[in-house]
């Protein structure tokens, strides 16, 4: 699996907040995609009802996951394809490498796939002498820069145009340009020959259709289609929870996916792959493989994080997250950033390493509000916080703080006295203009902004007076 930097989250977040390029990119990001989504949702009055159905359908699928996966495999075989099962990330890499070796592959083109990032496929292949070539424009830029994706659908969202211009100038050996269209044309030209020369094309899959034994990819660039079309061998790698019963069921999810992700009515290319090239055809891959990866997902079934398996990877939760919008995706330190990542990462790498992620949430609930399959992300993050506390992984200062507060809260008279004393002190500190510029133990707040001084009564004092007023 990919290297984990989640334990350094606090330091990474601090660096991210001071990164001028990143902050420029994020300023643009925060307004773009959420607004597009709102517009698309407004154009489809049935959107919320579709979300309810999608949630229920996913629940049904998960309850019968083994049955649908078994049926999917049967259908893939029937169509002349082959299904491979991978319990772990290492299994997945090994299986794909074996297929590549068997056909004597030297280069493989890749469509965008988060699961291939999760299992660390590129690294695995490179070490064994096979060159993986990322063809999604964002992933291509990142591969040249030896950088990691910072978003599950917009991987290079953290980069500005001048940064891309520098990278292309260095690697393409062409005159430097900051014209976005010219940069894209350059990448198009560079990748053209590689699409044709590749021996194997590896794509992800947004859904697996049990009815027909098909995988489907959803893209805007068309790189995924060229990847799965031109080489002699197509390998689709996918996680097990992506199976859906029928094409009708897939259509339900497709109505939600693009609108939630980019705010498009529909993505440009929605392409189904079913088996290999037919006898009378002159193009298309001869071999069709599907690698189904578990990597810890089956352990989530029936437990506290069961609902996370409904996720269709639209990225809407991170597009709308104030924390993600402030620090970007790379600070999270592993493959999946934002709210969905804060739930998935502890599951996959351990709460001992990823404990800071579910804590980096204001619990504002926006992620749950926009989730197309209604995953209660704040609740799931809270589950992780509880587990972290139960396993004594929370730092001792936090534990002592919470314990003291807990004791105080169980002694209401003392609690109110303490609060009213604190209230008086803070009012005194903010006596000039109602604002406090420096507060002990709260520099994380006051370094950036003033703390407003409290009103002249605590809540309990005001509550008591109001109650008496009503009685009188």
């Amino acid at each position, binding site marked *: 699996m990919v290297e984990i930097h989640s334990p350094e989250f606090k330091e990474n977040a601090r660096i991210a907040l001071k990164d001028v390029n990143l902050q420029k990119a994020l300023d643009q990001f925060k307004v773009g995609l959420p607004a597009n989504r709102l517009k698309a949702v407004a154009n489809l009055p049935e959107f919320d009802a*579709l979300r309810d159905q999608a949630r229920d359908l996913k629940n049904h699928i998960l309850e019968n996951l*083994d049955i649908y996966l078994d049926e999917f495999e049967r259908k893939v075989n029937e169509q002349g394809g082959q299904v491979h099962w991978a319990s772990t990330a290492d299994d997945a890499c090994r299986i794909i490498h074996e297929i590549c070796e068997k056909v004597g592959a030297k280069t493989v083109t890749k469509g965008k796939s988060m699961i291939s990032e999760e299992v660390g496929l590129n690294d695995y292949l490179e070490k064994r002498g096979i060159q993986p070539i990322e063809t999604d424009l*964002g992933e291509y830029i990142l591969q040249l820069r030896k950088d990691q994706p910072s978003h599950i659908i*917009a991987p*290079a969202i953290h980069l500005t145009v001048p940064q891309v211009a520098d990278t292309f100038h260095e690697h393409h050996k062409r005159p430097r340009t900051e014209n976005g269209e010219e940069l*894209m044309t350059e990448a198009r030209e560079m990748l053209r020959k590689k699409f044709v020369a590749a021996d194997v094309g590896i794509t992800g899959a947004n859904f697996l259709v049990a009815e027909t034994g098909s995988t489907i990819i959803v893209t805007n660039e068309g*790189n995924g289609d060229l990847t799965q079309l031109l080489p002699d061998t197509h390998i689709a790698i996918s996680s097990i929870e992506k199976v859906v019963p029928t094409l009708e069921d897939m259509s*339900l999810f497709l109505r939600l996916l693009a609108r939630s992700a980019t705010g498009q009515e529909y993505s440009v290319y929605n392409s189904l792959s079913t088996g290999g090239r037919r006898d009378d055809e*002159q193009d298309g891959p001869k071999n069709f493989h599907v690698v189904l990866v578990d990597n810890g997902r089956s352990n989530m079934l029936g437990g506290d994080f069961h609902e996370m398996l409904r996720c269709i990877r639209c990225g809407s939760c991170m597009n709308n997250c104030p924390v993600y919008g402030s620090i970007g995706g790379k600070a999270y330190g592993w493959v999946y950033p934002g709210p969905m990542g804060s739930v998935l990462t502890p599951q996959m790498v351990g709460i001992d390493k990823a404990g800071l992620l579910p804590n980096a949430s204001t619990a504002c609930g926006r992620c749950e509000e926009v989730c197309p399959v209604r995953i209660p992300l704040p609740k799931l993050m809270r589950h992780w916080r509880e587990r972290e506390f139960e396993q004594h992984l929370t730092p001792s200062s936090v534990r002592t703080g919470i314990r003291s507060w807990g004791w105080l809260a169980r002694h209401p008279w003392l609690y109110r006295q303490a609060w009213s004393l604190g209230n008086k002190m803070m009012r005194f500190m903010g006596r000039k203009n109602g604002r406090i510029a420096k507060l002990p133990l709260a520099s994380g707040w006051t370094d950036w902004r003033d703390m407003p001084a409290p009103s002249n009564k605590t809540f309990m004092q005001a509550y008591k007076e109001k109650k008496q007023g009503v009685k009188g």
Partner: protein
Amino acid sequence: MSREQVFANIRRGLKRGEPTSQQREATLARIQRKENNLIPARAQLPQTEQIELFREMATNAAAEIIDINSINELPTAVQSWLEQKGINQLVRGSSPDLEQLDWSQAENLSVDTRVAQVGDRASLTICFAGIAETGTLMLHSQAESPTSLNFLPDNHLVLLRKSQVVGIYEDAWKKLRETRGNHWPRTVNMITGPSRSGDIGQTLYMGAHGPCDLAIFMLDDL
């Protein structure tokens, strides 16, 4: 073996053993029924209005629509569309619809019938359906219509008959099952407008890896 391990893990999570044949049948009945889920009202219209909705949605997705009244107009319509872009070469599929045409009418155009190659400027294909809901074309692979024609050339030109327009994705799937049920195509492509990417500076540019332009020649066959 990984397969057994994955299935055992799933069943442990679901707190049950291997499903009985009755459980299996009851679940898989959903696949037999192929029922629609909630269908948005948008495309539930008479066919003439569906065609107008298709036109509107495809245009919104940056596809271009050229109306023709007879299929015999296609060679010259294609030629004049390509001329505007300074293109005099075309590679096309070999379906009967395109084979029967008199391509010598497009006298300035050199027309090849083959799979696409790197460097091809334009291709012409048929399609299976037009889906009004989002202005989406449905194409599928077949000997007479190689899929590389849909993705490799810089410009993709498509013949769509008005009679092929349906309202929703589900209607297109039903139609595809009826015509291709036992010979399911290797690939089905739903295409909505030309290729694009927002990966450079979060600005949308057209023509990332697939065709930079999608031109739909809409034949009035009703």
